[in-house]
């Protein structure tokens, strides 16, 4: 009898464990499946899809979305949202282009400048959220407008052109056959993924998003940490912005309008919860790839850009609805 009981207990425990793992990764698995389906469908539907040029293009397009979506994910985990990513990316990209054109900076120095610009914008967002206690939606909505205003002011609403070829290295360069952008994205994903899942700081980020009061009472310096999250996110947005500028070898003041939707969609598709406390970089990468494929596929299949907007909108609804559904089900179990 005892052995039978043990067997049941063992199997029951395995089942419980599996159910737990699946419910943690369910968004990621769903998104990955959708991604695979879309990838196969596009390779069948368009003869250009699987060409080296197109894949390279998707790679670097994914890279910018992915890096900025990683930033967005960090913010979303804290129960925040960053609407300013498009404006800040444009500001950082333009700043990078301008220091190359006007001061003769190298592409690496320009990247550092862009990252610093992003960090500064992130610092403002972070201070507004954690010290002025503005809701993240409002704080970053303000930055979205202010940043866009600033980029138009400094450029006079004209793109920054006549940059040396070398500026393209970041966005279009190749290392050992791999697009440079992919290498950068992988490094960013590994670093932030490790930070979130393995470090004390990352643990506190999840805790703050899950229950801010509990985090505070546990002695976690929530304001400082929250500010740090926005600064880090801003740095990544700055990096994404300068990569985008490098890809087109110019600084575009119009860049990134509507980008926040793509990256929020990428994060949410990948399992980040707008209710805070959940989200993983793996999922966000899948989400970013999916969004990039939707964009790329639409172009290949000659789908009107306005339909692309429509599709992204539908995806956001579906992903958030799914997240809510999952949360409710979990809570009703408790």
């Amino acid at each position, binding site marked *: 009898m005892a052995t039978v009981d043990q067997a049941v207990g063992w199997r029951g*425990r395995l089942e*419980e*464990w599996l159910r*737990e793992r699946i*419910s*943690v990764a369910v968004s990621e698995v769903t998104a990955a499946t959708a991604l695979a389906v879309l990838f196969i469908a596009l390779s069948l539907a368009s003869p250009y899809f699987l060409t080296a040029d197109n894949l390279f293009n998707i790679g670097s397009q994914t890279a910018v979305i992915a890096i900025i979506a990683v930033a967005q994910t960090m913010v979303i985990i804290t129960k925040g949202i960053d609407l300013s990513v498009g404006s800040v990316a444009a500001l950082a990209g333009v700043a990078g282009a301008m220091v190359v054109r006007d001061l003769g900076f190298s592409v690496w120095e320009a990247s550092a400048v862009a990252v610093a610009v992003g960090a500064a914008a992130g610092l403002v967002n972070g201070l507004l959220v954690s010290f002025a206690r503005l809701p993240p939606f409002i704080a970053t909505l303000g930055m979205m407008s202010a940043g866009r205003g600033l980029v138009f002011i400094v450029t006079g609403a004209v793109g920054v052109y006549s940059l040396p070829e070398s500026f393209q290295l970041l966005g279009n360069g190749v290392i050992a056959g791999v697009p440079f952008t992919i290498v950068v994205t992988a490094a960013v994903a590994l670093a932030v993924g490790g930070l979130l899942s*393995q*470090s*004390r*700081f990352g*643990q*506190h980020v*999840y*805790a703050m*998003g*899950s*229950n801010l*009061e*509990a*985090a*505070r*009472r*546990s*002695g*976690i310096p929530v304001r400082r940490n929250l500010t740090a999250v926005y600064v880090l996110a801003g740095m990544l947005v700055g990096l994404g912005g300068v990569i985008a500028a490098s890809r087109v070898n110019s600084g575009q003041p119009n860049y990134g309008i509507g980008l926040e939707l793509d990256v929020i969609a990428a994060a949410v598709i990948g399992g980040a919860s707008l209710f*805070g*406390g*959940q989200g993983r970089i793996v999922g966000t990468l899948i989400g970013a790839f999916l969004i990039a494929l939707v964009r790329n596929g639409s172009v290949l299949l000659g789908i009107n850009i306005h339909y692309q907007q429509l599709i992204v909108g539908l995806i956001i609804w579906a992903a958030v609805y799914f997240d809510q559904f999952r949360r409710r089900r*979990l*809570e009703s*179990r*408790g």
Partner: protein
Amino acid sequence: MSGEPVLEARGIVKRFGHVAALSGAHLTVHHGEVVALIGDNGAGKSTLIKVLSGVHPPDEGEIRLGGRAVAFSSPVDARRAGVETVYQDLAVADDLSVAANLYLGREIKRRGPLGRIGLLDKRAMRRGAAEALEQLGVRIPRVTTPISMLSGGQRQSVAVARAVVWATDVVILDEPTAALGVVQTRRVLELVERVRDAGMSVVLVSHNMPQVLEVADRVEVMRLGRRTARFAAAEATTDDLVAAMTGALTTESLD
């Protein structure tokens, strides 16, 4: 119950604007006893708890820990001094695992340079959490389970266990069974008894008179921001407690 009280509040006054939530409240907790703190709604129980756990600084009065006067300017201060509190709203992070919650704010880092850059020793925390829960007789599926997947009673047990693991002297429980069913309540009360048997002192805020008389060693009654009565649980009846809560009975001199 001899010697200095482990925790003592003397003449605590706490005002919010013109309202005095506490007007000279006392509380005495001896080593290794469960003290129930009861009182009607608005009697000041929760405010007193919050003063003792460092959430609100008192306007007047003194808190003594092991005979020495202390001043807590934050919950972290109180926790460092060995007083752990489980609040009514639990204060656990639902999305984190049981182990992560037990170690929240006190994570174990890896040894060596990896630890210095802030990397966690998750294995050590899992092991520590499993051991602590085992010792306290708290049964949950696994320490890696997110809190959101636990039942109400399991969550409450985890919250209590977290307080117990880190407390050195006193655990304060604010209405720990208010939201629980019969079986889950039983589990939590058993946990309270085990904590006491381990030599810790427990302050139990409760509305449930039979429960109070069952699990507590002593009962202190608050009314209108003060302590109005004290009983040994073994000698008191539910009627005594109700009489004290409504003001029909006092055992304290209210000068």
